[in-house]
């Protein structure tokens, strides 16, 4: 019971904290669109060593799941919805991502450059 109360209070403070966090001024923001099960742009260049905010806008009617093993991110984005995904800080290199629901067409790369 004590553990549950602790978990509950942690959740409460977590929610409070999250709603208070605004986009920090120095966090670069990039937008990727999903249209016809394709990512646009399919290649994104982001700075290295910094936290980066990705906004994925699903313009299709059906949901898609943005997923990347290299970036360790996966998020379902409902049709017509926007999703925020934080990545980084990352070392320079190529980090592919794909749409899990339509993996053959929805593919892209995030190129991290210093």
């Amino acid at each position: 019971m004590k553990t549950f109360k602790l978990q509950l209070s942690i959740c409460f403070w977590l929610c409070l904290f999250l709603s208070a966090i605004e986009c920090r001024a120095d966090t670069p923001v990039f937008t990727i669109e999903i249209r016809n099960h394709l990512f646009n742009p399919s290649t994104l260049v982001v700075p290295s060593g910094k936290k980066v905010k990705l906004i994925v806008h699903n313009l299709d009617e059906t949901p898609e799941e943005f997923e990347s093993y290299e970036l360790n991110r996966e998020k379902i984005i409902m049709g017509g919805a926007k999703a925020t995904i934080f990545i980084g800080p990352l070392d320079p290199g190529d980090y592919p991502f794909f749409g899990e629901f339509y993996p053959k067409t929805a593919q892209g790369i995030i190129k991290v450059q210093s």
Partner: protein
Amino acid sequence: MLSSVIIVLREALEAALIVSILLAVGRLTGLRSRWCALALFLGLMNSWLIAGFSSQIADSFDGAGQELLSVSLLSIIIICLMGIGIYIVRAMNGVIVTLRDNIHSTPYQNRQLTIYLLLIGAVVCAVSREGSEVWIYLASFLHDSVAAYPAFIGGAIGMGIGASLGVIFYYGFLFVSYQHFLFVGILFLALIAGGLSVQIVQDLMQTGFLDSTMPVWDTSGWVAENSLLGQLLYALIGYEARPTALQLIVYVCVVSPFIVLSVWHRYKKPENNS
């Protein structure tokens, strides 16, 4: 169709492993298995609910609703697994009498209720979490009658393969752990709980609440995450090819209580059992 098999299989595998190990634990400690049917039913209902409200959930908490729900469900599973770990230790101590002894005193029934709730809780949360993603994926094909048929067939195949692997794991676990029930049982619970905790950290990093750091190592050259072995290891022990320091720390922190519990039981003075 192949991609739908893989997508559904991945989700089904994670849930199937938890269900099969908890079923085996219940079986080895003399519990009846009927709790599983109720848990699966509730989990299914819950996963439909979550899938149905997925847009609202995703938009809540400044877009972090999906991750927060995932973190909550994972946390509940981990807490339930810890409770079940304690239950295993007490069962080995003979503190909890098994159903075979047919004792119906009130304290006994209360303990039974607790363990059934823990088992049901873990399975409901696991099935809700994995199931909702499957329904969201399959529901997206309702608009597209051409692609719907292979997608649903592929989904059914993936579910079947996942269930079969769960059955194999169930009997494998019974076979292995009958001799060393305590150690093997708690080990598996520990590894699964550790894997779930790694996912919690990943979800929180994704929302930006936790700061991500550079991976400590990269073993994708040895076992790629998207390979079959990688997926199996991911479901079983939470394998990450590029774990961050925080994920490693959390993994150790979650696995340690289980190890400590079993070692403590192994070396404590024997109680006077009736």
